């Protein structure tokens, strides 16, 4: 196996911080992800049944007269994320289909667990008003209490759940 080459984490962090500053300075937006996924979901619901999208309390404001649910800052930002990731992976020679997982976990199990983990994120982000990027990182950048609640709960509970589900990531002989 070839060694994966990644950039220095402090350099990556500083650059990421500068992009957060730019997002706030130009657009008044934090760098987010889950909000863009939501906008895609709202758009799909609106396409299938505009009447339902109008009547649902969660989607009604996002499909109001004169508002287009897909032309949001976050959706365009996520399109950029896709392109940016592809450019980086192409440069570093990582652009190929494979399944990321701990070696002792079967591919089938990994994919099932990824779907379940995704479902939890889908619910958690909509309830908690954002994810690691929009709620936590961008919230911390402007000293918002919400960002720190997100940081403490996502990572705090993550350490507890990681202990419980240790077998998913660590082979037992390494304990």
């Amino acid at each position, binding site marked *: 196996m070839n*060694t*994966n080459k*990644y*950039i220095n*984490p402090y350099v*990556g*962090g500083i650059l990421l*911080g500068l992009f957060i*500053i730019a997002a706030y300075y*130009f657009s008044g937006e934090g*760098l987010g992800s*889950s909000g863009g996924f939501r906008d*895609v979901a709202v758009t799909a619901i609106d396409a299938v049944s505009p009447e339902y999208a109008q009547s649902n*309390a*969660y989607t009604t404001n996002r499909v109001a007269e004169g508002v287009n649910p897909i032309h949001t800052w976050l959706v*365009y*930002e996520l*399109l*950029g*994320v896709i392109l*940016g*990731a*592809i*450019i*980086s992976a192409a*440069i*570093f020679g*990582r652009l190929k289909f494979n399944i990321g*997982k701990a070696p002792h976990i079967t591919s089938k199990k990994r994919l099932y*667990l*990824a779907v*379940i*983990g*995704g*479902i*939890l994120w*889908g*619910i*958690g*982000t*909509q*309830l908690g008003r954002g*994810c*690691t*990027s929009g709620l936590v*990182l961008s*919230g*911390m*950048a*402007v*000293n918002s209490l919400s960002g720190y*609640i997100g940081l*403490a709960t996502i990572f705090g*509970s993550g350490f*507890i*759940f990681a202990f*419980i589900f*240790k077998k998913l*990531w660590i082979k037992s002989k*390494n304990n």
Partner: protein
Amino acid sequence: MGPLYPDIINPELNLLIGFLIGIGFGFILEASGFTNTRKLAGIFYGYDATVIKVFFTAALTAMIGLYTLHYLGWIDITKTMPTTFWIPTLIGGVVMGLGFVIGGFCPGTSLSAAATGKVDAMAFIVGVMIGIFGFILTFGSIWEGLRKSGNLGKVDITEWIGIKEGLFIFLFTLIAVITFVIFQKWQDHWKKKLSQDDINDLGL
């Protein structure tokens, strides 16, 4: 004075800026290793310190930069402060923490990973969309009251604790540096036990 949207730049340019900033965001996520699910999970077990280093360095850089711009009068940071709903964010955060350990991604990292061919990230995104559709379809019957509960308004953590912003940023810097040292030692400890394949995969 920032934010430049909507007073100075128009909606179309704003979306283009979002796209360009997104390219930078996606590039950094991939180049730093955030599309590698084992590196992400590594934060919880200590074998990989990358995520915590990138994450806290980014938060610090943005925090210091934005407050410098705020004091210089270049941006009004109070305009961008999100509202804190502590109850749903606390509960949602725990659900996300579980999702992180089970699924091995968060939404932004999964999109970068799926874009570069990680099939597990594609499965994760399918799950995220199922979760969001499920949330929307059951919003009125399950979530509406809970999501609106615990509204504290726009809370600045420095006012909430009762210390000056400068002191807060200094303390956070201190905590970040200590965290980096601890996680680096934890990673060094693990590295002796990892196989060469693991070390190559994680790029340590």
